[in-house]
């Protein structure tokens, strides 16, 4: 809730600042260019790049602020670290009351634990001082009775914390944390957690980055980062190409022959809505968990998309083009090669972009189930070891690669079918 409201306030604040800055620094002429008169004219709405940059920066800032990152000057209150202490009072079997101190050192999360120097022991009294160490976010159990004289007695009771009465299973707030008394008479100290995320839930950006460099250099579990990604990419490319090799001719056949269309229509229409992930169990039973299984899965993921794209590409041909080619003396084969295939390329490219996206998503999921190498395998193993930084690094990499694939496909599309959207 806190983070959401912070995010919304950032959105509103930056919007207001942007509007003010624009009003200040641009002439009235260019303002008129920005503001179209017709609200709802969708074509005039282009993404504001300043907003995009600010959006990314805001997310990054919130990430930094709530993980105590050194990259951000502003932080949400962090967990308590350092030394603190509280006192407890105990009553022994003879109903005498004595008070002693507990000294606690709370170490930062990523640092090794350092011990507190032994507490001064009071000589003439039965309650003795204690010391304990822990790290941020972690509570520590302090068996204060153990070193007290007569502390083993059943009638030896802790009665007060910082002069406030306490009973078993009660919690009392002390400086920099909470103290609770267990039914067995031990004290448990929980240092203040602050508002930041524990690194095990969400590590700071710089940890993710150092982890990226570390994994890139040394690999993770004997598999290099590059190797993991290349394996995933190879699977995608193999599955996608197989899907194209079978799917595109099949789509053409379905677009050109009513027998083919009738024969394959039920199959294609039935298989199309099945998410590829639902096929994983069957694919594992049939092909096993190794490469053949994964590539078959990706093949199935790409196949129907490419078939439908090729079919749409054929069906979408303007009949005038076919008629024109016929009346120019072209044969059926020539029409197929020179008219139908080039005419279907824009549709096929659209299909290929969708298929690549689906394949990339499917390969990661398939690797989560079973794989030796691969981006998905890397993050699922890391999650089992609670290495959140690797998980987050992996997710970001998967996203970046998916985006890069789409960008490459778009560039290829512009190069190869420049007439798309222009006819």
């Amino acid at each position: 809730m806190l983070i959401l409201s912070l995010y919304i306030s950032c959105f509103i604040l930056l919007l207001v600042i942007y509007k003010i800055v624009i009003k200040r620094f641009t002439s009235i002429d260019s303002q008129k260019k920005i503001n179209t008169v017709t609200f709802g004219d969708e074509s005039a709405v282009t993404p504001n790049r300043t907003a995009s940059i600010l959006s990314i920066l805001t997310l990054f800032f919130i990430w930094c602020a709530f993980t105590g990152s050194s990259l951000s000057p502003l932080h949400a209150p962090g967990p308590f670290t350092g030394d603190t202490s509280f006192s407890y009072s105990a009553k022994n079997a003879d109903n005498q009351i004595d008070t002693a101190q507990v000294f606690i050192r709370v170490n930062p999360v990523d640092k090794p634990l350092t011990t507190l120097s032994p507490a001064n022991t009071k000589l003439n009294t039965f309650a003795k001082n204690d010391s304990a160490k822990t790290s941020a976010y972690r509570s520590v159990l302090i068996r204060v009775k153990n070193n007290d004289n007569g502390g083993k007695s059943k009638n030896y009771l802790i009665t007060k914390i910082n002069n406030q009465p306490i009973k078993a299973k009660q919690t009392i707030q002390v400086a920099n944390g909470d103290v609770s008394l267990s039914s067995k008479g031990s004290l448990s100290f929980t240092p203040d957690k602050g508002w930041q995320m524990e690194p095990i839930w969400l590590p700071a950006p710089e940890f993710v980055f150092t982890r990226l460099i570390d994994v890139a250099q040394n690999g993770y579990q004997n598999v290099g980062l590059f190797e993991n990604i290349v394996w995933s990419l190879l699977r995608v490319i193999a599955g996608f190409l197989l899907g194209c090799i079978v799917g595109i001719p099949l789509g053409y056949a379905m677009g050109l022959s009513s027998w083919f269309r009738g024969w394959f229509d039920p199959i294609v229409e039935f298989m199309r809505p099945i998410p590829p992930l639902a096929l994983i169990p069957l694919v594992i039973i049939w092909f096993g968990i190794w490469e053949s299984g994964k590539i078959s899965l990706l093949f199935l993921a790409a196949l129907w998309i490419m078939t439908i794209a090729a079919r749409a590409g054929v069906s979408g041909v303007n009949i005038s083009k076919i008629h024109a080619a016929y009346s120019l003396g072209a044969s059926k084969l020539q029409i197929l090669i020179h008219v139908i295939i080039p005419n279907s390329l824009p549709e096929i490219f659209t299909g290929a972009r969708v298929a690549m996206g689906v394949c990339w998503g499917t390969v990661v999921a398939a690797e989560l189930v079973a794989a030796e190498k691969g981006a998905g395998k890397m993050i699922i193993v890391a999650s089992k070891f609670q290495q959140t930084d690797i998980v987050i690094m992996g997710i970001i990499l998967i996203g970046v690669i998916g985006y890069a694939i789409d960008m490459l496909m778009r560039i290829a599309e512009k190069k190869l079918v420049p007439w798309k959207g222009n006819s």
Partner: protein
Amino acid sequence: MTEQQNKDTSSSLHVDDVSMSFELPDGSTADALQDISINLRKGELLSILGPSGCGKTTLLNIIAGFLVPSKGSVSLNNQLVTGPSAERGMVFQQGALFEWMNVRKNIGFGPAMQNIAEDKIKQRVDHLLETVGLHGFAEKNIYELSGGMQQRVSLARCLANDPDVILMDEPLGALDALTREKMQGLILKLWKETGKTIVLITHSVEEALLLGERLIVMAPRPGRIHKEYQLPFAQQAISTDIREVKKQSEFTATREEILSMIWEMEEEIMGLKA
């Protein structure tokens, strides 16, 4: 002597008693054409006019060989038409050019399909570019051209095959009025220079008058020939200004006559007249 003056050669395009009926989804049949007969001599310019739904395009598709008539036959130079062929070139309204080829490749498409040597194709294309006024546009992409220029490419592409008959299906229908008038002049010029037989479909009365040595007005339901005209305007427009031809009282009188004829048919379709 241009070829079109030798009109006395034996008639070349026969449309012989053609009828066409389509089966509708509900099982009944609709008569699109009924007993159409047209004899066209080589080098004649025929325009076909009629309200929408009168079967003009169906007729043209039958002549082109894309449709087989239910009854009757079409023959060109005493050869029966059984399918599309390069001797009957076709110009469409728009969208029939190949966007994946540049202007040169589009125009040279027909010859290239017949495996004619490349340097010959190049020569022919260069000549045609000159003829239709697209000099210097050879390497442009189709989608970079205006609508009028695209139709010039269509005309050139059709001519590149040197067809006996050119069939035009509302070739200027998508153009603005000014471009349209220019293109009408171009079609007349090409007709005169090449002496081709041309069949042109249009829904513009003015265009039909100007681009028809002969003019057939069709009536709908079933599509049939309503009236036929022999007109002098195409010949006049070759030697004089098109605008002048259109101003003549004879031209306007014929235009009004045909317009009211078509209006009557339209009203009949709408059921306004019993």
